[in-house]
């Protein structure tokens, strides 16, 4: 056991943070949100620097990929980072060009980046299916949640079936990706809120000095750190069914709590688009619903341990 990042892992984290300092951050996210746009420039920068394929590189792996996903989520990058750096490489052994959408296979489901994606990975139950999305067949769906969302049409090109067991593989790595993005977004939202309550004064003192807020913030810290360790372990275990489901169960289950608490503690200011908090918290709402949300992640974790089942998705194929 050794729970510190090794030198290479630390170097990767530093390098991706340096890139993100230039290309991402809350201001950039606000800029993009005006047009519900995807950050193609950031995607390209990450791709060219090799961060999207890091899970496949000799001497690196899923833990390094998850560090990248977590960092991008912390920096509020508007890219399909979990799908592009974790899920697609695990299924395809390569990184597809352009944004990648992940779909549970439910009719009419809301899908992140569906409009901007060049391909989608579909949970077809036993098999995962790679569907090209040439000519942007998806319909945009307006939401209040910053991330561009869309619906895929009922009839799609046949796509490439990825073989028996690939459905389970998709769900395992998708859960790992959800967890990593949740951890990054929760970390940033919590840090920002701690800063806010430290500076905001009412009744002649910082509001963060009230124990009524301190205990709840401390509880969120325990939850975010616990979720992070579960996520890193799941990455280290190459998204084993149980480890990945536990990570997603914990983080997706915590996401709503963090959303509610951070917005309560930042008051009306946190509900404005002038304060950056919403850049992270709104994403948590999107993430917490993916692949059936905490309810199904918890069931998947229990099935993996006590029923030795492969996990079930939400779609018709299951």
């Amino acid at each position, binding site marked *: *056991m*050794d*729970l*510190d*990042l*090794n030198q290479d*892992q630390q170097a990767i984290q530093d390098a991706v943070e340096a890139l993100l300092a230039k290309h991402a951050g809350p201001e950039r996210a606000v800029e993009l949100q005006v047009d519900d746009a995807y950050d193609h420039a950031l995607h390209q920068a990450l791709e060219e620097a090799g961060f999207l394929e890091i899970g496949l590189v000799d001497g690196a792996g899923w*833990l390094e990929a998850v560090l990248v996903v977590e960092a991008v989520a912390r920096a509020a990058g508007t890219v399909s980072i979990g799908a592009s750096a974790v899920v697609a490489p695990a299924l395809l052994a390569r990184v597809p060009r352009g944004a990648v959408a992940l779909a549970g296979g439910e009719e009419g489901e809301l899908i992140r980046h569906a409009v901007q994606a060049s391909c989608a990975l579909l949970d077809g139950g036993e098999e995962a299916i790679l569907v090209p999305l040439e000519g942007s067949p998806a319909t945009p769906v307006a939401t209040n949640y910053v991330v561009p969302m869309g619906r895929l049409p009922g009839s799609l090109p046949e796509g490439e079936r990825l073989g028996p067991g690939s459905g389970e593989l998709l769900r395992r790595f998708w859960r790992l990706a959800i967890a990593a993005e949740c951890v990054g977004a929760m970390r940033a939202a919590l840090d920002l809120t*701690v800063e806010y*309550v*430290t500076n905001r004064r009412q009744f002649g*003192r*910082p509001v*963060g*000095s009230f*124990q009524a*807020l*301190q*205990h709840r*913030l*401390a*509880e969120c*810290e*325990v939850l975010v*750190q*616990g*979720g992070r*360790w*579960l996520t*890193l*372990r799941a990455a*280290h*275990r190459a998204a084993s069914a149980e480890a990945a*489901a*536990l990570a997603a*169960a*914990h983080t997706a*289950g915590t996401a709503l709590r963090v959303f509610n608490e951070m917005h309560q503690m930042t008051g009306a200011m946190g509900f404005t688009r002038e304060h950056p908090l919403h850049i992270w918290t709104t994403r948590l709402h999107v993430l917490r619903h993916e692949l059936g949300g*905490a*309810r199904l*992640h*918890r*069931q*998947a*974790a*229990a*099935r993996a*341990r*006590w*029923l030795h089942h492969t996990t079930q998705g939400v779609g018709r194929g299951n």
Partner: protein
Amino acid sequence: MEFDWSPEDQAYRAELRAFIAATLPQSWAEISQEGPGGAAQVAYSEEFCAELARQGWLTQHWPEAYGGKDASSWRHAVVSEEMWGNAEPRGPRYMTVNWVGPSIMHFGTEEQKALHLPRIARGEEVWCQGFSEPEAGSDLAALRTLAIRDGDEYVINGSKIWTSYVNHAHYCFLIVRTDPESKGRRGISALLLPMDLPGIELREIPGLLGKKYFHEVFFRDVRAPVSCRLGPEHEGWEVVTYTLAYERVGAAHYERAERVLDTLAEAARKRGLLEDPSILERLGQARAAVEASRLLTHRVIDLREKGSRPTPDTNIARVAGTWAVRAVGDLVHELHGAAALAYDTEADGYYRLSQWAGVASGTTEVQLNLIASHQLRLPRE
């Protein structure tokens, strides 16, 4: 970053499991019904610890100079997990080797080390912790028990409360106020007090957790030699901080929680409930809490192994541990229903102790205060 146990530690765990399976008596479930402080478990722990010491496993995490094997903190964690996973056959002696011994090594005189360490290492001494007082619980630094210097003796007057294992203890790790003019953290000293001195009286407080669990201890003009003081006079708060950092994650509560959760899943399976999505959901949710607690505790062990000072990581791990134990405890009642009310059931045994998790060794609220100030660095009033 490496989440797997070394092959050596894995092999050792297998060996230890085999030893435990071969050593624990048939009646272990009955013996352990009252928890580590129950009379039967305390009595059995003497025999078990002696056997463990013969194997060289009771204090292997101690330095060689004190009869240990310099084993890593990870090796010690394997022992903690296997012991708590089996309802702690070391009884109260777990805390003697976990933090009493290390505190004596760190702060003790050569005489104190020579007196206690070899006996602790053989599993012979039982200790209790004289910290809480009726007016000093969460606010431990408000303690009032006085030890006034009289020549080469201290004269102790006052009382301690909630003192687990005191009815079995040979010594008390006692904190007292040696400077009667002082307040708060200054003026406190730690004493290694023999429990057979005249003037010490016990009163049992009937409690919800089990028989003979809570006690109050009264000290009336108890005269103890100054040589039993641990560390510098009036500066015992440092000793307290040191011991608490060891105590708070010394017991691998998550390991027991995990095993109880496994038995709950088995019970649900037998009743045909294991395919029920709502049951699966609750089991999965509790298991996520247990595993988060395990990993946060492992992080503390990792820091300790690397020589890091006590940090808020310890408080974070403790809070997560309490949540894990509670989540499983609540599920015990949910799955077993009214049957879990019966005193002599395994379900009740676990539930009774699980209620206690947020109070023992510092309430959850105190842990949260420490996280708020030392981890989040939130402002004070």
